[in-house]
Structures are given as C-alpha cells and as structure tokens.
C-alpha cells in the first residue's frame, strides 16, 4: 500500500513537472502573468510528491517489506536500522529517487526564497529545472521503478554489500548528489538567461550562492568518499583515478572554474558567454557522471548493476539536455555583449588564467576517462588509462594554477600592477623558500620535488591569508578583530579556501614523498619495523561480530623500546555474502597515520601483514575541511542574502533589449 502510494506520488510529480516545464515558459514569453504564476506552486507540489515517494521507499526499507524488489535486493531484516535507512540510496533505483528529491528540493528552494527574482526569470528558471525533472522522473518511472513488487514475497532480503555497511560510505552519496544536483541550479539559470538573452551582474549574484553551495557539498562528498576508500579498502590509497571518481571530480573542476568566472560577471559585467557555457558544462559533466555510473560503458569498482536500456535512456536524455542547451548557447550567446574591458594583468586576467587551467585540467580528466571507451569503439582494443596518465598531465596543469593563486587576489580589477603585487608577496616568497630549504636540509631522504611541493604549500597558505593580514593585523593588533568583522565574508572565505588548497598540497607532497610501506609474512612473536615503530605480532584470533566472523591480529607497537599502543586490524568474512573486508588498524599521530592491515594466512602459521606509515595524510582532510569552511563563510556574505537590487537590473537592460526574447519587461 505504502509502495503504491510512493509510485503514485512519482507519477503525479512527473505530470506536475511536465506542466511546470511548459506553462510558465510560454507565459513568460507571452507576458501572461497567470501562466507565469503556475511555476512557484508547481515547484512546491513537485517537491512534496518527491518527498512522499522518497519517504514511502524509506518506510518499506525500515519495515523490511521484501515484496518490494528494491528492498529485497539491497536490504536484510537483520541489518542495523541506520543501514536500513541508508540502504535506500545504496542501490540504483533508490539513489535515483534521492537525486530527484534533491532536484525538486532545489526547485522548491528557488520558488520559496527567490521572491526578489524578477517573475519572468524565476518562471524560466523553474521551467528549465522542471525539464530536468521530467527527464529524471521519466527515467525512474519507465526504466527503474523503485516500487516494483515481486510475488510471492521472499521471506528475507539479499542484504547489502558489507563494504557499504559503513558510516563514511553511507553518508557520502547524499553529499555528492547535493553537489551534482546543486549545479542544476546554475544550469537552469544559464539556460533561462540564454532564453531571455540577457546576463547581468544581478544574474551572477543569483547564481553564485547556488553554485557555491553545490561546490561545498561536492567537496564534502568527494572528501568523504576518498576518506572512506583510505580507511576501508585497506591499501592505504585515497584516490585511484577510477572512472567514477573522475565522474565526481570533473564537475568539481568545472564548478570551481564557474565559481571564479561568476565573480567576474558579478563585479565587472563581462566574460558572460564563457560563464554561461561553464554553467552548462558543469551540470553536463554531472549528468555524464550519472551516465558513466549507471550504463556500464566503463568498468569501475563503484558501478551500479547496469542495464543497456537504462544506458540508452540516459544517453537520449544527455543528448536532449546537453545538446539542446549547447545549441541554444550557439544561437543566443552573441546576444550577450561583454561589458567592462580589462588588461591581461588584472584581477579579471588572473581569473581567466584560473579558468583556462581548470578547464584544461577538466578536459584532460575527461579525455583520460573516456579514452578507453573511444579506443574500444574505434579499434576494439582494450586499454586502461591509469594514474600515470593523470599524474603526468594533471600535475603540470596544476602547478602554474597554484603558483598564480596567491598573486591573483592581490591584483586590482581592470588593470593590475604585477610588480606591486609581487612586492606585497615578498615576505611570503622568502618564507616559502626558507621552508622549502629547511625541509631539504632536515628531512631524510632528501627530495627536490618535495622541497618544491612544501614551498608551494607554504606559498599558498601564507599567500592565501596575506590579503586578510594586510586588512586586519597590519594596522596593529588593537582593532584587528573589529576590522576582521567589518571585512566582507566573501574575502575571508576566499582566504580560507585558498589556504585550504595549500594544506592539501602539503599533505599530498609529504605523503607521496615519504610514506613507507612494509610487506612481510609474520608469525606470532615476530616483529616488523615501520618508520621508527616496532610492531610485534602478539596473536591472531577469530572473533564473531553481529553478521561476520573476523580474523583479528593483535600487535604491540613500541617506540624507543617502550610499548606505546596496541593495534588490532581485522579481516572480516560476512555471513550472507562472499565479500571479505579488511578493517585496517589506523593510529593517528601528529606526524601521520600508522596503518596496519592483516592479510591471508600462509598455511604455516604466518600471516601476510602490511604496515604503512602515512605522514601528513590528515592534512588532506583538514585542507578539504578548510576549503569547505571557506565556501560556507563566503556563502554567509551579506551580498548573497540580499540578492539582486532591482534598480541595477533596469539600468542595464537597455543595450540588450533588442536581444531579449518577448515582451517580458
């Protein structure tokens, strides 16, 4: 009964979305206010229906109603309640439903909070958002119904992959989706602007907070996923350049570029066509990611159960959504006249450089991800593009970006003074160089690459907070707090986010240069030395968990002859599943993580043990957290809350009135 209610709610949502996708759009073109007025309530109803469907499915999971195929496939009555709930999006159908819930949620948010948007723009944005909704609702209803019944109902479910029974993994998909789908707002605003034929600073002021919020969510989602891979997969890696990881990384790169180019539109009223294109591309890459994960065109450890019919449907949707919006872009972009001019050395110029490098990096990742597919399609040859390709292409693109990152914010708009900016950075440069040299002199084994990396990290962190320092502390300690409070939040956010990137660079450099790995067959009583720690295997015992049997190895860890801690990595075999998971024992210290994994027994009383020391690995997550904090602080900026002042809009419409479609003003 509840399942049917959910199914029915989805059908209602599809019908409402179809209305919302057409009526307000026509109304905006014809100046019919009552048609335009349909948009807001429709967005609300769509969200309500999606929520009913989502919670109906959640109810079926919590009740363990195995007559619902999705529940049967991915749940089990013995599973802890938390994982019954998170199991809702641990499968293709349910995750799609979550996607739709978030998509309609963003639409409803625009309808609710966008009261100061011009009604015609709001109507067009909501119509475009509803078009995306129609695509996804039709996809779920016609190819992936989450409420399908099976008869007779099985007595027990098939459980969830035990790898997925983990808090880190359970919560990271919602964040990723909030990120992916959040970019749909930028997309809808971009397409609406193309239809109107007008982009102005007010438009950018509207798009930026949505993009920034989506970027924060995506950053959290990617970091959580990476952190999960690090502690759960058991080989100490945190990023594998897997197609599905790339699928989340590409929108992140494009979204980062979009954040920056939207600043130029907002402040200087230029770079409009490019910003619109980026907004379309960012969401297109999110859609492409969905296609890659769910169609089976690329092999990945993350892929959902795949089905060619679904692949075909999504491909058709991609062609309509991306192809349609890019065609619209080709036709309408000439109407977007650039505003302010600027010299190559200027804040605008720096942001253009940022965009070129980020877009190139994104294209590189796209090429590496799709290359196996393209080659297979052309010649039938099977290749896999691995980390070497990405490292060889991605790193050289990032280096100039990172080097320029500290300089850009110091350049004024329109025409900058590079020498002046570099002079302000003199102390930062000296400090960074000194840090690098100190690392070179003091840390064994010596590494020139790491020296450069650490110096770059210091340059980024210090250079990131330099604008803050200049505007607060340099004027004296007294009053610094007051001056900080008076600064625009977006300035503080930028400094934090840039410094966060520096911390990530620091973590990456130290980790990749100085991590140690030991691989050894150990018997009870034997020892292994890892980075100054001596691990003694005390014993291996079988331990029963709630739904698994674990082999738990116990180690005494000594430093300088004294036992400082005890570690107990496990290898778990699950009762209902052939899956074996490794539970690495990870001991965080100030300098890094001691990471121990127990492997197979060799049959003669020995166990394959791997011990790692991962120096500075925590700075990766701290850096990501600081970046997100920067995004959130910037999001709290007053400008974003106030929205677009109406006076500014009318002043700028004159030049573009001829290009604007219809009689909306």
């Amino acid at each position: 009964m509840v399942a049917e209610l959910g199914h029915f709610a989805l059908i209602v949502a599809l019908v409402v979305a179809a209305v919302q996708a057409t009526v307000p759009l026509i109304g905006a073109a014809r100046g019919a206010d009552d048609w335009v007025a349909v948009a807001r309530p429709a967005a609300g109803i769509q969200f309500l229906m999606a929520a009913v469907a989502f919670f109906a499915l959640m109810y079926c999971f919590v009740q363990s109603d195995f007559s619902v195929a999705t529940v049967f496939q991915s749940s089990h009555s013995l599973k802890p309640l938390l994982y019954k709930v998170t199991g809702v999006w641990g499968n293709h159908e349910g995750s799609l439903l979550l996607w739709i819930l978030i998509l309609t949620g963003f639409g409803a948010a625009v309808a609710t909070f966008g009261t100061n948007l011009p009604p015609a723009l709001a109507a067009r944005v909501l119509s475009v958002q509803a078009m995306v909704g129609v695509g996804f609702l039709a996809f779920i209803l016609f190819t992936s119904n989450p409420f399908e019944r099976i008869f007779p109902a099985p007595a027990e479910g098939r459980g969830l992959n035990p790898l997925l029974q983990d808090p880190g993994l359970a919560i990271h998909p919602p964040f990723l989706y909030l990120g992916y789908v959040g970019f749909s707002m930028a997309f809808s605003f971009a397409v609406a602007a193309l239809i109107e034929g007008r982009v102005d600073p007010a438009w950018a002021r509207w798009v930026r907070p949505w993009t920034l919020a989506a970027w924060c969510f995506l950053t959290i989602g990617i970091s959580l996923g990476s952190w999960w891979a690090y502690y759960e997969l058991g080989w100490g890696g945190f990023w594998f350049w897997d197609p599905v990881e790339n699928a989340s990384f590409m929108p992140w790169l494009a979204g980062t570029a979009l954040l920056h180019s939207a600043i130029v539109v907002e402040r200087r009223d230029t770079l409009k066509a490019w910003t619109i294109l980026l907004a379309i591309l960012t969401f297109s890459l999110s859609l492409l990611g969905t296609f890659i994960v769910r169609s089976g065109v690329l092999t990945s450890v993350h892929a959902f159960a795949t089905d060619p019919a679904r692949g075909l449907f999504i491909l058709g949707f991609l062609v309509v959504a991306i192809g349609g919006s890019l065609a619209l872009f080709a036709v309408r972009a000439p109407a977007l006249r650039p505003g302010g001019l600027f010299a190559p050395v200027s804040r605008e110029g720096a942001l253009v450089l940022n965009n070129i490098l980020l877009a190139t990096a994104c294209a590189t990742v796209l090429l590496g991800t799709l290359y196996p597919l393209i080659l297979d399609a052309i010649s039938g040859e099977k290749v896999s593009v691995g980390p070497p390709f990405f490292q060889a292409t991605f790193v050289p693109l990032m280096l100039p970006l990172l080097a320029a990152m500290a300089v850009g914010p110091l350049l004024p708009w329109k025409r900058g003074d590079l020498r002046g900016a570099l002079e302000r950075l003199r102390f930062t440069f000296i400090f960074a160089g000194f840090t690098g040299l100190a690392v070179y002199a003091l840390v064994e084994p010596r590494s020139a690459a790491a020296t450069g990396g650490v110096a770059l990290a210091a340059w980024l962190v210090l250079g990131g907070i330099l604008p803050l320092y200049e505007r607060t502390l340099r004027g004296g300690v007294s009053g610094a707090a007051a001056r900080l409070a008076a600064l625009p939040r977006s300035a503080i956010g930028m400094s934090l986010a840039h410094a966060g990137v520096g911390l990530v660079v620091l973590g990456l450099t130290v980790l990749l240069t100085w991590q140690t790995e030991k691989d050894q067959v150990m018997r009870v009583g034997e020892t292994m030395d890892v980075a100054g720690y001596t691990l003694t295997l005390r014993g291996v015992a079988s331990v029963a968990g709630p739904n698994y049997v674990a082999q738990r190895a116990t180690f005494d860890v000594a430093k300088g002859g004294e036992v400082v801690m005890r570690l107990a990595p496990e290898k778990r075999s699950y009762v209902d599943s052939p899956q074996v998971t490794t539970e690495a024992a990870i001991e965080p210290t100030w300098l890094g993580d001691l990471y121990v994994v127990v492997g197979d027994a060799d049959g003669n009383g020995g166990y394959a043990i791997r011990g790692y020391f991962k120096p500075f690995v925590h700075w990766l997550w701290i850096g990501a957290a600081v970046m997100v904090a920067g995004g959130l602080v910037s999001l709290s900026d007053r400008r974003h809350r106030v929205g677009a002042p109406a006076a500014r809009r009318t002043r700028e419409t004159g030049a573009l009135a001829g290009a604007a479609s219809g009689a909306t003003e």
Partner: protein
Amino acid sequence: MRPALLVPLVVFAMVAVALAVGLGLKPREIPSALIGKAVPTFALEPMKDFGPGFSSEDLKGKVSIVNVFASWCVPCRAEHGLWIEVAKTGVPIYGLNYKDRPNNASAWLAQLGNPYTATGADELGRVGIDWGVYGVPETFVVDPDGIIQLKFIGPVDRNALETQILPKVRELQAKAVARAG
C-alpha cells in the same frame, strides 16, 4: 552566429557518438590471454564427499567444459541448473571449486545436484590463478588436445549457452570426429 560558438556542441556530439557506440560494447569481456594455449598443468584434491579429484590429464582426448564455481557465489547458483541440463546430454563438465570451504561446497552440490564428471577443490585459489580466474563463475571450453578454445566470464544464461558455449563444443566435436575419421 559565430562558428566558434558551435565548438562545444560539436565536441559534445562526438562524445555522444562515442558513448552510443560504447553502450554496445562490453568492457567486461576482456580477451583472455589463454585462448589457444594449453591448459595449465595441475592436480586438484577431491572435494569432500565428491571424489575423485580433477587434474589436467582428465581434459585430454575429448571436448570438455571446465566450470569455476563456489558455494558462496550467488550467480553460480543461477547457472547451476543449466549445467545439470548440459550434463544430461553427455558433454563432460569439470568443476573447479574455487576458494570454498569443504563443508559448504559439498552441501551445495548435495542440495542442488552434481552435474560434474569430476570436481577438484582449489581451496587457496592457486590453480585458479593459473587459469586466469578473476571472477566466479567462469567457464572454459577445452579441445581434445587440452587447448583452451573459449572463455566465458560471469554467469552463463540460456542465451549464452545456446549461442556461444554449445556451438563451440559441437564445432570442436565435429573437428575431432573429422580428424579421427
């Protein structure tokens, strides 16, 4: 309209074509390096209660199917019924019981029926490595000279059985008869 503005659309069109072609491809069908090579030399212990063991010598002199299975493998259960049918037609099927616990494996065969001419237990998966096994189930067709002629990854369904595996078996059988005659 400026032609440069069409670039994104054209690039996307090319990507879309690649994706469309990609949908028809199967990246999981990795060509096996073992096709056309002799089977690895091995001698497996018998499974508990299901003797008498299985070695590379068993595969000489006739066309045979080698099926890698395990009791923990759910897709194996799905394809098992098909092997029972095939066994009734007289084609010899050899079972390589991969990384399984002896009691579970024999209980599984006792419950579902035993289609195998002979089975061997590969508890540690060492022989599986020689066969290039990376997922279970996997199925091989071996000719009378002990050369691997076909490898099928994943569960065999009726379609795969009737369009790929059995035709290969019949083709090899016909060749063997022609050569003998």
